[in-house]
């Protein structure tokens, strides 16, 4: 059966290449039957890859350990959930999974848009299938998950224990969903360039795809942080590691893209910029995948040891230069339909916000790749760590927060300075009041934190004012009660008010980051049974931890579990127990330290068991107080809900969208 899987992927590769070529030839010779054949081939690719995925899953579920991949990622003791998710537990399987997702998206978009987008379709198919051909080629030639061992091992080695966490299990597929879904807007953008349909049709057609891709990417980022925080036991959630950065960088370019497309839809402006951003988003996504998989930056000395590295580089260079060539050759078609009316306009603030995001992307990209460049140019690798990223990005994050509050309050086209001042007065007052309050009442004296919290208050107020404006207008004009008015307001303009909800989510995340970054407290101590340690935060209060002793146990899947029990007193009041754990995976000979937390919206008390002597007469603990950290996860949820609202299909809107505005744009294009 594994051979069938391998053959299926090989056929998928051939078929994807066929679809690419036939779609292009069909478009060139204007032979719709050829394009239809390419479409069918694309469906065939999706079907074959689905078959391959089903086969690999079956091998995992039936414990076919002769298949090397199954041997390396699962074992008899693994629960069902981990057997299923082992599909993306390691490189070879995850590449197959990745290709499968992309093929499904490619097929889905053909179902959706085949009828309405005839002219662009051949190129959309060609772009997607060419990418698929590359990824399936990697599976076929360098990362075959169906490879067989020449003996049949009785049991597998099992999945890396650190990856056995819910957050880690769904974090990679979220990122993959985000990454692969971006191929759709990218393919439409390229098709728009080729067919010279440089109006906003490609943007409107793929708006939901873009939002969905962005949403998955965002969820992936948040889950990655949550997993790191929950499992790794270093008290943090983001380490500016190249692997983390490689998923952040495309997000930093996709986010301004989501905003600047509004300029093209509303005003016919920024066409070149939007094109550039979507091409960059996709290229950076490939770049990130490459970084993660070739493992070249983690240690510069293992440069491109994996055979995937050079192939990937060639592919990225090819895709990027093709896109760039098309982009430049269509430069004049991408001329703006309108001029900027005024420096003080939403357009102009959008553009600055865009530039700042791109600036953030540049910084993170540069810092991540710096060892490579410095080694290439000076022969010596020079690295930068978290302090670099924190220092350099902080002012820009602050600017993003500020603009996020100001921009929605400024009208399109032109704003008078006086009006702008009037609208900004309340946010400014609240922002300053919060700073004063925190300074005098809450004892926050670090200016970075003060500015950060002040900006959060400013922008939150500005955003709430936007809601209030809409709600009170409905209340006055239609006599709706406030809750009803809020509901209908969001209903009627999901994109706008969903978008503001995303902003609120971002503010909450920012509050969590500022609190935990500036006010984390940590301590460590060795305790005998009955002894206590204290950890105190100026903002939060004092915890007293009393060591009660160790408990040992064994789980059915061969883990030795050592639990340390500590009773907690918070500001003198009993506050339950905290139980940090050390697990030992017998098969892998791998220990794993799992922190325990006492979580409230104010803070987390975060404790790890660092070691013990004998049977636990004494043990050493490391404890952290992470103020406000849970706002990051709360903000993440608000953020996701907001995106869902903004992306939710609207029955009345979809018919209007596809008919009216497109025609108008088409007419203006024809006049020119």
């Amino acid at each position, binding site marked *: 059966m594994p051979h069938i899987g391998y053959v299926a992927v090989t056929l998928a590769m051939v078929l994807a290449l066929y679809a690419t070529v036939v779609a292009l030839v069909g478009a060139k010779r204007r032979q719709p039957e050829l394009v239809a054949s390419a479409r069918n081939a694309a469906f065939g690719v999706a079907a074959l890859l689905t078959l391959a995925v089903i086969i690999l899953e079956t091998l995992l579920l039936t414990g076919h350990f002769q298949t090397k991949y199954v041997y390396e990622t699962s074992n008899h003791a693994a629960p069902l959930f981990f057997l299923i998710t082992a599909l993306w537990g390691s*490189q070879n399987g995850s590449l197959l999974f990745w290709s499968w997702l992309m093929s499904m998206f490619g097929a889905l978009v053909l179902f959706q848009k085949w009828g309405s987008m005839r002219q662009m379709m051949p190129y959309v198919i060609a772009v997607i299938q060419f990418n698929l051909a590359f990824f399936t080629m990697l599976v076929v030639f360098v990362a075959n998950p169906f490879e067989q061992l020449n003996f049949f091992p009785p049991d597998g080695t099992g999945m890396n224990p650190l990856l056995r966490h819910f957050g880690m299990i769904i974090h990679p597929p979220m990122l993959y969903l985000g990454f692969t879904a971006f191929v759709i807007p990218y393919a439409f953008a390229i098709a728009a360039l080729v067919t010279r349909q440089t109006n906003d049709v490609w943007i409107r057609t793929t708006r939901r795809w873009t939002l969905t891709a962005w949403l998955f990417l965002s969820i992936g980022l948040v889950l990655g942080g949550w997993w790191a925080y929950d499992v*790794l036991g270093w008290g943090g959630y983001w380490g500016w590691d190249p692997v983390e950065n490689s998923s952040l960088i495309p997000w930093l370019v996709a986010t301004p893209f989501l905003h600047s497309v509004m300029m093209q839809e509303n005003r016919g402006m920024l066409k070149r910029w939007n094109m550039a951003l979507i091409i960059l988003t996709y290229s950076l996504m490939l770049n990130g995948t490459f970084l993660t998989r070739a493992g070249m930056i983690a240690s510069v000395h293992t440069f491109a040891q994996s055979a995937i590295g050079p192939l990937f580089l060639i592919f990225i260079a090819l895709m990027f230069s093709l896109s760039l060539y098309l982009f430049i050759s269509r430069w004049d078609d991408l001329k703006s339909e309108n001029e*900027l009316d005024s420096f003080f306009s939403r357009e102009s603030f959008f553009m600055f916000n865009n*530039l700042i995001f791109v600036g953030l992307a540049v910084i993170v990209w540069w810092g991540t790749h710096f060892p490579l460049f410095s080694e290439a140019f000076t022969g010596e*690798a020079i690295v930068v760590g978290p302090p670099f990223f924190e220092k350099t990005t902080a002012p820009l994050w602050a600017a993003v927060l500020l603009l996020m509050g100001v921009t929605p309050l400024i009208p399109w086209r032109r704003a008078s300075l006086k009006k702008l001042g009037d609208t900004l007065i309340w946010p400014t007052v609240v922002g300053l009041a919060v700073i004063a309050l925190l300074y005098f009442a809450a004892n926050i004296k670090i200016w970075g934190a003060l500015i950060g919290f002040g900006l959060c208050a400013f922008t939150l107020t500005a955003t709430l004012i936007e809601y209030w404006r809409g709600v009170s207008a409905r209340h006055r004009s239609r006599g709706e009660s406030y809750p009803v008015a809020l509901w209908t307001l969001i209903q009627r303009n999901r994109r706008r008010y969903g978008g503001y909800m995303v902003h609120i989510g971002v503010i909450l995340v920012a509050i969590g980051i500022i609190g935990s970054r500036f006010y984390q407290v940590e301590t*460590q101590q060795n305790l005998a049974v009955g002894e206590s340690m204290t950890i105190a935060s100026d903002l939060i209060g004092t915890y007293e931890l009393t060591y009660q002793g160790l408990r040992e146990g064994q789980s059915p899947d061969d883990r030795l579990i050592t639990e340390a029990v500590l009773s907690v007193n918070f500001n003198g009041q009993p506050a339950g127990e905290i139980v940090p754990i050390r697990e030992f995976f017998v098969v892998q000979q791998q220990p794993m330290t799992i922190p325990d937390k006492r979580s409230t919206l104010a803070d987390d008390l975060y404790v790890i068991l660092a070691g013990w002597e004998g049977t636990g007469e004494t043990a050493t603990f*490391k404890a952290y107080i992470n103020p406000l950290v849970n706002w990051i996860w709360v903000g993440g949820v608000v953020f996701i809900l907001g995106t869902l609202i903004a992306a939710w299909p609207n029955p009345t809107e979809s018919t209007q969208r596809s008919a009216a505005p497109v025609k108008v744009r088409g007419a203006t294009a024809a006049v020119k």
Partner: protein
Amino acid sequence: MAQSTSIPTVQVSGRSTNKKIKFIIGGVMIALAVVYLIYTGIQSTSAYFLTVDELYAKGEAMENRTVRVAGDVDASTIDFNNRDLILTFAVTSDTGERMNVVFNGPKPDQMREGAEAILEGKYDGETFTAQSLLLKCPSRYEEKGIEQVQVEAVR
């Protein structure tokens, strides 16, 4: 727009170039700010990334400066003081050069033979005092290989 149609064309284009210039100035300022931030950031926070032999070859030039060093963990030398969380071990390079490392913090779960350690800290001519310790097991953790195992020394 209605307003501007009555004004002679020369003025319109003059106004729009004026706006354009303002905008370009704004854009250039942002770009310069980014370049400046990157430049000063690299000046103040970058560190050399060396193997053990490269560190030795540079001699005193690298002593007592923050550097990042990569080497393979020699498991037979691992010693961990549970009580005070003091971890000592040696790393080796491909050519067999050895360096003693001391790290004050919890012992990473991946600390074992064959693991590749990436250390950040200072070398005083005899021992390397690591501020942070990254461990990587090349054969097993293709993805997410690095971030999961980073630990910070007690500050």
